[in-house]
């Protein structure tokens, strides 16, 4: 055993009683005294440490490092920003894998390539032969650094102790960071081989290896060996070179596209030129696409693929066991064993992970490409044929902070159609709707920041006749841009729309307003569509170019989903051919206040990307957007761009108490008319282009992308209601906006005084908007929000900018506008803060007190409720016959 290499942590493993084995020429721990099963479970439940210092660490530097790497790796190296990592494969000339690897960009001008320990020598021989053709060097720095994987739901908080509370990395997978931990330089990657949604690989100088290992154990992590590393990666469905990649049990090389991760690891970007294996990989990719469309007519290029496999009969599958479909041998198990998991009970967000554990016989298999999910096959286990099934996956990680085992369940039978009496159901519905209305309007304190209630006048108008009608209209140039209405009976609504446009122009302070859009997202889609149409207006003979680059607030940092590629931007955003990703770049945020845009860093981004569209606006918002500063900068730098402000939540705060977007230099404003604004649920678009501006043509495009682009029916009932709401806003905005901002600040301070962790800057009372954000503990948001709802306080749980996703939410997001409208003042918000603290911190039942507090506030303010109006509304109601 003395010829074997030892890592910097060897002594610690031996001291802990680890069983050591030869792994790729290294003496490594296969398990510690706890055993593989316990080590696997502790990773899924808490945090395990893996010594991965045996893996090859290669540094690539030099002027031609990018062309070299583009030639020897399957991935697009230019898709890697600074502080990002990517999974990649080292291909051979035949499109098969020499090794799989991870590429890290910790520094601007060099790359770190981490390869499998067993293949390090082979990889170096292969790469060294090629690097001589490039102005580039590869240095094996394996000995100089140690590498420790820290994996599991508690990994983040444990590492945060060492970083002194500083966020270890950005929350997305593959993020990198270099930071100090207790005075030592540490490089951290949000990567790993266990499939855990929270997991890191930490690189330290060799002399710091033992310090890091011991500190992590002090903080509650436990060591785990290669045995658990294998069961964890198997459950996660991750390939292991030598099993799922390399050669099959018959010795035949396996095509790279046999592994599903190839879709992400292989790029055919032009920048990669004719890289090693490109041609066979392109043929494999074409074959892969056919197979994914269930065209099995020619599987010669990709005859077999790696699939997950679950044993149905009693037994254990192992690598090498043949798999049959009827009499036909269709492949082999490539990896298999018994894997433990924690049982769960309950459904959806209420799923509870139990302490009780079980085991399942699962694996990965290299099977004929026409094998489908849910197919039943047989595995030959030492001469006996046992039944197995092909599940879609063994595990899912879209509900962080836990990895969730997915137990195979055959598709459920569809329930029989419900055939009860519809008349009875109709009566039921009225009853249920009545109860719900009663509950929300008289018992609940509604703090969802995107919600509000409308005045009686607005609601009655919304329910009156135009609600069932159409009023399509278009400007005709022959008539000097006069609108022509297609239908009869539209004189009233024509006047209404003109009056509404007038009121909104006054409110927003701009030249033109479009009111036919019926939601905030639709407003944004109409604007994006217009910008794209306008961009291509001089060339209608080719497929239109999409928008790019676009600068926005990332959804993780509180940006609205509308401005993300997943939202309204979806079909309008270009893909950058260099990075092969959406041409979107995000506003950087301040290190000491993640809710605030960092203007100086933004200027660097603007200089680098020169985006053609800048979208301000957020849905988790505590601060004004720096519109004026950015407008000044893009003007000074002559960056041709459109500045759009999706005001969404804060449309009702346009004015002296918040911001005046057009005065600050915005070109386009969109918004939701029902959040802080008093209206029913609709959207609106405002622009400040005058008839003499070139961009007035863009405005005319916006009008046509609204109608006929986005609507045919523009919901006349609520448009009528919106006019009343606009009168209300324009009349009462000064008192209302002042009250909202004051109440929000006061509410925030009271919650803080009650012992809650309020987000934002204490120096400006935590908020400049209607929103207040409270952190209640990582991952506990959903449960706390539910408990508050049981007590009739309605808020929403939300992930903060440094949390992974909504199931890991640690915050509550609240808005004061609706309750301000019902007359809540400072005292009332103070009382509410007390009740909330009682519920959140002391789990008290406060539902009775909440109802009492609400009961005193059911009259709406900031609307016309003098005698004349009340009389008029009574008459109107009578007339409506409702």
């Amino acid at each position, binding site marked *: 055993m003395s010829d074997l290499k030892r890592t910097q942590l060897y002594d610690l493993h031996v001291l802990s009683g680890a069983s050591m084995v030869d792994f790729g020429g290294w003496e490594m721990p296969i398990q510690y005294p706890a*055993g593989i099963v316990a080590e696997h479970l502790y990773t899924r439940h808490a945090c395990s440490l893996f010594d991965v210092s045996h893996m090859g660490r290669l540094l690539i530097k030099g002027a031609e490092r990018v062309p070299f790497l583009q030639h020897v790796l399957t991935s697009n190296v230019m898709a890697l920003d600074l502080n990002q990592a990517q999974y990649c494969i080292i291909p051979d000339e035949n499109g098969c894998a020499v090794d799989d690897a991870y590429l890290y960009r910790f520094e601007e001008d060099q790359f770190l390539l981490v390869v499998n320990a067993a293949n390090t020598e082979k990889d170096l021989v292969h790469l060294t032969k090629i690097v001589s053709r490039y102005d580039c060097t590869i240095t094996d720095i394996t000995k100089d650094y140690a590498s420790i994987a820290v994996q599991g739901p508690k990994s983040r908080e444990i590492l945060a102790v060492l970083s002194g509370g500083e966020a270890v990395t950005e929350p997305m997978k593959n993020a990198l960071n270099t930071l100090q931990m207790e005075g030592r330089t540490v490089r951290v990657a949000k990567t790993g081989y266990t499939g855990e949604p929270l997991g890191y690989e930490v690189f330290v100088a060799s002399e710091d290896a033992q310090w890091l290992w011991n500190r992590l154990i002090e903080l509650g992590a436990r060591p785990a060996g290669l*045995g658990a590393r294998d069961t964890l990666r198997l459950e996660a469905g991750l390939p292991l070179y030598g099993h799922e990649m390399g050669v099959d049990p018959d010795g035949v090389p396996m095509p790279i596209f046999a592994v599903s991760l190839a879709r992400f690891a292989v790029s055919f970007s032009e920048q990669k030129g004719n890289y090693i294996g490109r041609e066979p990989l392109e043929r494999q990719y074409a074959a892969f696409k056919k197979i994914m469309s269930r065209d099995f007519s020619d599987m010669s290029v990709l005859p077999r693929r790696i699939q997950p496999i679950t044993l149905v009969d009693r037994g254990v599958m192992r690598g090498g066991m043949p798999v049959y479909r009827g009499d036909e041998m269709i492949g082999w198990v490539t990896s298999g*064993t018994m894997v433990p998991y924690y049982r769960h009970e309950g459904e959806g967000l209420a799923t509870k992970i139990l302490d009780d554990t079980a085991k399942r016989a699962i694996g990965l298999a290299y099977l004929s490409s026409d094998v489908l999910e849910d197919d039943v096959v047989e595995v030959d286990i030492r001469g006996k044929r046992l039944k197995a099934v092909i599940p879609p996956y063994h595990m899912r990680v879209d509900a962080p902070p836990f990895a969730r085992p997915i137990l195979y369940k055959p598709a459920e039978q569809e329930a029989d159609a419900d055939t009860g009496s519809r008349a009875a159901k109709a009566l039921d519905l009225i009853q249920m709707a009545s109860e719900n209305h009663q509950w929300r309007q008289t018992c609940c304190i509604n703090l969802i920041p995107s919600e509000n209630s409308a005045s009686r006048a607005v609601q009655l108008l919304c329910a009156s006749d135009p609600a069932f009608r159409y009023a399509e209209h278009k400007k005709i140039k022959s008539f000097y841009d006069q609108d022509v209405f297609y239908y009869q009976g539209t004189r009233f609504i024509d006047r209404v729309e003109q009056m509404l446009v007038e009121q909104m122009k006054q409110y927003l302070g701009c030249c033109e307003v479009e009111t036919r859009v019926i939601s905030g997202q639709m407003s944004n889609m109409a604007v994006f569509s217009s910008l794209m149409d306008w961009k291509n207006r001089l060339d209608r003979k080719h497929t239109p170019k999409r928008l790019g680059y676009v600068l926005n607030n990332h959804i993780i940092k509180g940006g609205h989903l509308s401005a993300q590629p997943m939202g309204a931007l979806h079909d309008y955003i270009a893909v950058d051919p260099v990075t092969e990703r959406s041409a979107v770049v995000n506003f950087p945020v301040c290190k000491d206040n993640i809710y605030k845009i960092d203007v100086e860093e933004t200027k660097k981004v603007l200089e680098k990307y020169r985006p053609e569209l800048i979208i301000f606006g957020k849905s988790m918002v505590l601060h004004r957007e720096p519109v004026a500063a950015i407008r000044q900068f893009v003007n000074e730098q002559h960056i041709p761009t459109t500045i759009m402000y999706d005001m969404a939540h804060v449309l009702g705060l346009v004015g002296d108490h918040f911001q005046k977007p057009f005065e600050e230099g915005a070109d386009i404003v969109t918004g939701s008319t029902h959040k802080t604004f008093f209206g029913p649920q609709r959207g609106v678009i405002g622009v400040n282009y005058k008839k003499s501006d070139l961009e007035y043509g863009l405005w005319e495009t916006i009008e046509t992308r609204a109608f006929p682009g986005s609507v045919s029916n523009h919901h006349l009932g609520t448009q009528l209601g919106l006019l009343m709401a606009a009168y209300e806003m324009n009349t009462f905005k000064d008192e209302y906006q002042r009250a909202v901002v004051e109440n929000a600040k006061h509410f925030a301070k009271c919650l803080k005084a009650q012992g809650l962790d309020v987000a934002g800057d204490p120096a400006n009372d935590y908020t400049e908007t209607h929103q207040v954000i409270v952190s209640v503990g990582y991952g506990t948001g959903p449960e706390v929000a539910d408990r508050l709802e049981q007590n009739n306080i309605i808020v929403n749980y939300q992930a903060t900018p440094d949390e992974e996703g909504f199931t890991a939410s640690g915050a509550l997001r609240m808005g004061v506008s609706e309750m301000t409208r019902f007359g809540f003042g400072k005292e009332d918000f103070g009382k509410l803060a007390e009740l909330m603290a009682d519920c959140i911190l002391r789990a008290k039942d406060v539902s009775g007190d909440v109802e009492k507090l609400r009961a005193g506030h059911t009259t709406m303010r900031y609307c016309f409720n003098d005698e004349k109006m009340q009389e008029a509304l009574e008459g109107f109601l009578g007339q409506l016959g409702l």
Partner: protein
Amino acid sequence: MNYPADLKYSKSHEWVKMDGDVAVIGISDFAQDSLGDVVFINLPQEGDTVSAGEAFGDVESVKAVSDLVCPVSGTVREVNEELLDAPEKLNSDPYGAWIIKVEGITGQEELLDAAEYEAVCAVAED
């Protein structure tokens, strides 16, 4: 490592205890420690014939399969069905978690006493 004095042991690391005419058989502490976590067991059926020196079933750990070698010849009278759902009992209680009971004994392997077996294990560890 435990080597209870009242049991007999085979060189292949099974233990035997005579309960009247019935041989109760399991695996030793040394065996479970070498195996690591036992995750699965294949048991014979009641009524099966077993032969001294031949496999009567197998245990699977996370990493490998190991045959269970029978120290005696005879007929299986009873199998410990608890082990089917909880094979880990072989790790936590190797001398309490018996595997099979054999009656009608017609032969046996050379069996060691506790001290002899402990010596065999000491050599095996080097």
